[in-house]
């Protein structure tokens, strides 16, 4: 699947295969992994949950946004759901473009947009408790009712 939610471990090569093209000189991937320590606190494992049908639509929307902004770009994004242990792969974003600068920029755009508009949530489990994490971009309210595309170079 080019844009998908997966209950199984993500095959990184398969995501990359979706963006291979004869006029790409560069493919970048972003692989989000479960980190053990956040601000000194030890994570045991995470649970990811998605509003799957909408999440897929929003991932596809991010792909469309990228193809409009970066000429010749191809995009594939797969996000994992379920229980993930430390070092497990939560998300894989692959972007191919003719030139390398675009491949980095467009990929970065994708992960920032995922954190804005894709209905996926993680619950962190620590030794002393658990909590649904939200608002990692430190925006509680959306004045426009929905998240806006933001310039990444702000």
């Amino acid at each position, binding site marked *: 699947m080019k844009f998908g939610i997966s209950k199984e471990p993500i095959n990184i090569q398969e995501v990359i295969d979706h963006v291979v093209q004869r006029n790409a000189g560069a493919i970048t991937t972003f692989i989000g992994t479960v980190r053990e320590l956040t601000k000194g606190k030890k994570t045991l494992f995470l649970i990811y949950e998605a509003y799957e049908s909408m999440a897929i639509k929003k991932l596809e929307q991010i792909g469309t946004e990228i193809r409009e902004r970066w000429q010749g770009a191809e995009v594939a994004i797969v996000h994992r759901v379920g229980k993930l242990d430390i070092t497990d792969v939560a998300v894989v974003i692959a972007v191919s473009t003719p030139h390398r600068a675009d491949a980095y920029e467009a990929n970065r755009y994708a992960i920032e947009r995922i*954190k804005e508009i894709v209905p*996926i949530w993680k619950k962190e489990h620590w030794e002393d408790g658990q909590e649904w994490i939200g608002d990692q971009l430190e925006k509680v309210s959306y004045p426009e009712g929905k998240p806006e595309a933001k310039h990444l170079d702000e």
Partner: protein
Amino acid sequence: MNNVLFFAHLKDEVGAESLQIEAKGKSVLALKQVVHDTYGLSSIDSVMTAINEEFAEDDDVIQEGDTIAFIPPVSGG
């Protein structure tokens, strides 16, 4: 009738993934008020809402059969 979906901490607080609620003709804001009052979900005021899998505004009006989802701040990636 309308299928109303809850995720993350909202799901935990409501104790259900979805509820059947008659919301036809109500605005999103009015439905939030119903959910707030019925289930004591004070945080519902600050979450986003989707109608049929697209983000909606507080003053959008719900139609018969629309699927409504309350979307807490997301944390994927």
